[in-house]
């Protein structure tokens, strides 16, 4: 079945086909209901409904974005934080589309500072474990936590490789990063960590890749990447690995 209308898209995302909806929020996954700002040009990115429809026609993955402590004072302007997250959704969709993997439904969840038990700020990988053990969304989408801040020098996001196929286990969620970074950095980290969850390892060992293609790969560690803007390429083999994962749904 092809997806040619918003109603078909809503059905494909198991959101039903009636009621009020926002195309930008419900179909394209932008919380602010408007295309996010491209940090390079400071203008809104160009998006089409067609790319969301195509994503659902392909193999695709649904995403739960669980925002933790975005009401913390350090986050500052919430609209700016939301814009960064929307940009991360946009970039992830585009990066994965190059390997025929779609980003489907994007759900937004909220753990305020008062309920976060301090995990709006992660000080170690084991605190990331605490967070994903404490919270889980019981549906068929991947649980990605986005936190206000990370106070650890060893990671900017963290994910099991691969993530669990079902909820309730030790590796059923990932931390897609902290919002307290530049938008391009946030977006690359979320796409990179989702890649880990879908069974991609780094494309190098202790030493960084020596080729330009290797350094421009999404799965190069941050220390090896040329830039957070350009180092988002995926090989066909990596695409095939991700499309074969249990979290990936068949196209509509």
């Amino acid at each position, binding site marked *: 079945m092809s997806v040619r209308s918003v109603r078909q898209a809503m059905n494909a995302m198991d959101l039903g086909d009636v009621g009020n909806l926002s195309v930008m929020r419900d179909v394209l996954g932008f*919380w602010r209901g408007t295309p996010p700002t491209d940090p*390079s040009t400071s203008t809104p990115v160009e998006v089409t409904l067609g790319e969301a429809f195509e994503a659902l026609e392909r193999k695709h993955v649904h995403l739960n974005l*669980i*925002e933790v402590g975005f009401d913390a004072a*350090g986050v500052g302007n919430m609209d700016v934080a939301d814009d960064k997250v929307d940009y991360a959704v946009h970039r992830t969709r585009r990066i994965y589309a190059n390997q025929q993997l779609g980003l489907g439904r994007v*759900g*937004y*969840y*909220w*753990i*305020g500072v008062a309920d976060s*038990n*301090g*995990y709006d*700020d992660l*000080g*170690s*990988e*084991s*605190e990331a*474990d*605490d967070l*994903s*053990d*404490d*919270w*889980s*969304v019981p549906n068929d989408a991947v649980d990605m936590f986005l936190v206000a*801040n990370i*106070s*650890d*020098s*060893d*990671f900017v996001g*963290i*994910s*099991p*490789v691969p993530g669990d196929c079902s*909820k*309730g*286990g*030790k*590796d059923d969620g990932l931390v897609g990063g902290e919002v*307290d*970074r*530049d938008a*391009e950095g946030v977006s690359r980290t979320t796409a*990179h960590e989702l890649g*880990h969850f879908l069974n991609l*390892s*780094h494309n190098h060992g202790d030493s960084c890749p020596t080729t330009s293609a290797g350094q421009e790969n999404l799965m190069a*560690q*941050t*220390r*090896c*990447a*040329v*830039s*957070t803007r*350009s180092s988002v390429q995926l090989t066909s083999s990596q695409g095939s690995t991700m499309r074969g994962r249990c979290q990936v749904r068949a196209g509509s």
Partner: protein
Amino acid sequence: MPDLRLSLERRDDEELARLARASRADVAKGSLAVLARRDAPGVQNLARELLRGHADERVRAMSAVALGRDGGPESHEALLGAVDDFHPLVLRRVAQALAKVGGEEALAALRRVQPPPDSPEGRDVRASRMLLSYRLGIPEVLVGATETTTFSSRRPAEIVFGGRRRVRRGEVLAAAQRGLPALSVVGGGVRTFTCSGHPGALVLDSELAARGFAGPRLLGALLRERVCSESRYSLDVYLLSDDRDGTGGTRPRLWLVRPSGRVVHAGDAEVADGRATFRVAESVAPYGNPIKVTGSCDLASGTLRIDEASVGKPSVRAAKAAEPPTRDTVMRRR
């Protein structure tokens, strides 16, 4: 302002040190983090300077984290001085750093600060005092009572100790040293394992026999492979023991506790004739799947014999993760 599209990782130490003093918190914090990861020369001096003087709490917190990887006397002193930082986030990270590298003065300093016990900083200060108690052998704060479930899985999977997978011991030792600089571990004290498909390693204190089990003890730690972490292996849980039942150290309790203070597993041991026979079969949901690990350890040599090691799935009655509210719901309430 630097071009942030160029990864901070690709900048040299000098530029990063300059950026770490920037007023923009994300740039300063990120730059310091990269320098700490590199163990760059002078990073401890810089971290001490920023811990004392940076206006943003996130940068001061990252400075405390960097100093917690060091263990030198000047870093220890700087951390002690920062216990009175007005911001709870800084206190949390200072407390955690002191738990790794602090001595009795750190225990006294953390005893003095009294954040609300139910707050994140209260929890972290308590967890740090607890870890210091076990590290230093001072029975001040012991692991708290926790509801556990006992292993009873009918179709367990084996936790494989050793096996064919090649793990670089040097990498594990380096990670243990970073995570817990005060723990004395030698290569022979590293045991690798695979649990539910995930590699890990047990590191044991090289002075197991010398210290006895009459008081609280830090016996070692479990490290976990994290493919996406810069150091690949990182601290998962501490292995602690105490003699809360007053057995003179012959029947200590065992605890596997995350750095946050969360108990994941528990068990007990019998110590006799230079040998500890142990059984760990209590687990705390949803933080640890049910396990049963039994065996013995020669305390003089650290030689470990595993008799049984199994992991199961959580019981249907075990505590579950909570469901976060949708953002729509929360925003409508406001």
